[in-house]
């Protein structure tokens, strides 16, 4: 199992051919209190860089991009009734969606965890 991050502050946890996607602790902290999240439905195909989900805080709306291409296998149903779960556990139970990886080579351009945590400190 390996963990990657994007410069848009998404994380991707890869286990076999399945990737779980969410937003980082840094991202939830910057957004503030999250009041709404919309996740993609199972079966939807997304390409790297597509708008895949929406997250809204008290302040503003943000898109969550698909960090890699693939077919969505599950959206996190818990977020509809409890969007604040993203604030409480952004890199765990507050995940957004899972997808089957279409092209593992897309992972190569992403940051690993130490690189991301170091980069975030410079922002």
């Amino acid at each position, binding site marked *: 199992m390996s963990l990657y991050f994007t410069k848009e502050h998404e994380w991707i946890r890869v286990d076999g051919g399945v990737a779980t996607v969410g937003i980082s602790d840094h991202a939830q902290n910057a957004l*503030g*209190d999250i*009041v*709404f999240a*919309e996740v993609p439905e199972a079966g939807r195909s997304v390409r790297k860089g597509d708008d895949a989900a*929406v997250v*809204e*805080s*008290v*302040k*503003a*709306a943000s898109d969550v991009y698909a960090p890699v291409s693939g077919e969505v296998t599950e959206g996190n149903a818990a977020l*509809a009734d409890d*969007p604040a779960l993203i604030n409480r556990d952004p890199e765990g139970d507050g995940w957004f969606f899972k997808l089957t990886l279409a092209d593992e080579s897309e992972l190569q351009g992403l940051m690993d965890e130490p690189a991301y945590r170091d980069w975030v400190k410079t922002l």
Partner: protein
Amino acid sequence: MAETTEDLQTLPLDAWHRSKGGRMVPFAGYEMPVQYEGIMAEHLWVREHAGLFDVSHMGQLLFHGADVDRALEALLPGDLIGLKDGRLRYSMLLNEDGGILDDLMATRRGDQFYVVVNGATKADDIGQFEKRLPRTVVLDHMKEQALLALQGPEAAAVLESLVAGVSGLTFMQAALFHWNGKPLWISRSGYTGEDGFEISVAARDVEALAETLLADDRVRPIGLGARDSLRLEAGLPLYGHDLDPATTPIMADLGFAIGKRRRADGGFGGAMRILAEIENGPVQKRVGLLVDGRQPVREGAVILDSEGSEVGRITSGGHSPSLGRPIAMGYVAATLTDPGTRLTVQQRGKLFQAEVASMPFVPHRYHRKPAGAAA
């Protein structure tokens, strides 16, 4: 919104905000705290306890000179001649067509008028006043004064413990008090819908006062984020969003601010148009909207009628922490303003269902003088 850091001014409490964990953002030409612990928690704290806001970015103006009340009435549609000493009046600075250039609070203070205007508009307002007031009226921009607001159901008890007698003020009343020998001009007013006070204090004394207020466990610092969600729940318009030069007081549903005598006599910018709107109704009017579902609709979203035709725009919208649902304000055609009217809102290609609601969304809890009591 291309505000760059180098253009921004700092507030007298800048270092204090940062030391309290304030997250600073550009607003009205200043670096200001948008939140400390978080907008939701701060919002709910103000509804239950007392919150301290730094609103020193706002313009504090003092007018004096012969017939200052009469002179100001040419620019503001409120009854200022009839305003008693130590009383506040909500009013608006109008252009010659009746469009709103700013909204403001005016207080008669002896033979002077103390006027608080919005931060983003204060420079333009001063220009308007200097251009349109007679030479006999002198305007002093009180740049050396800071402004704090203490808001919430525990605000009166907190402030009374520091400034004896202040709880004797009623809503929209003001007076001079002292704290540690320092003068404080305190009014019972605010922008949250709660009971509370606005405190004008010398900039050199504001940090000591803020620190003393915050030492009370009932008080927490509150940022701009919660200020916005609180005023939205209270149904209070925000200048530059819900009010602008294209709107009149009647369109904005602020007709209460135009007193009986002013309606009879006119004599303010755009009086013909505004009096006609009072008589016949405006073409569009500001309304509140309860939005179905959980997703907020925000400023700029389009409002549609049942036929799918555009009938207005959202001017403010967001999540209501007190109600736990999205609420909004916007302008719609006058035929669609009855509470309960169903409307559709379109935002980023998605449709939302909404219902016109009477405002405030959360009841005001002002400390009004008892009905029937002498003024």
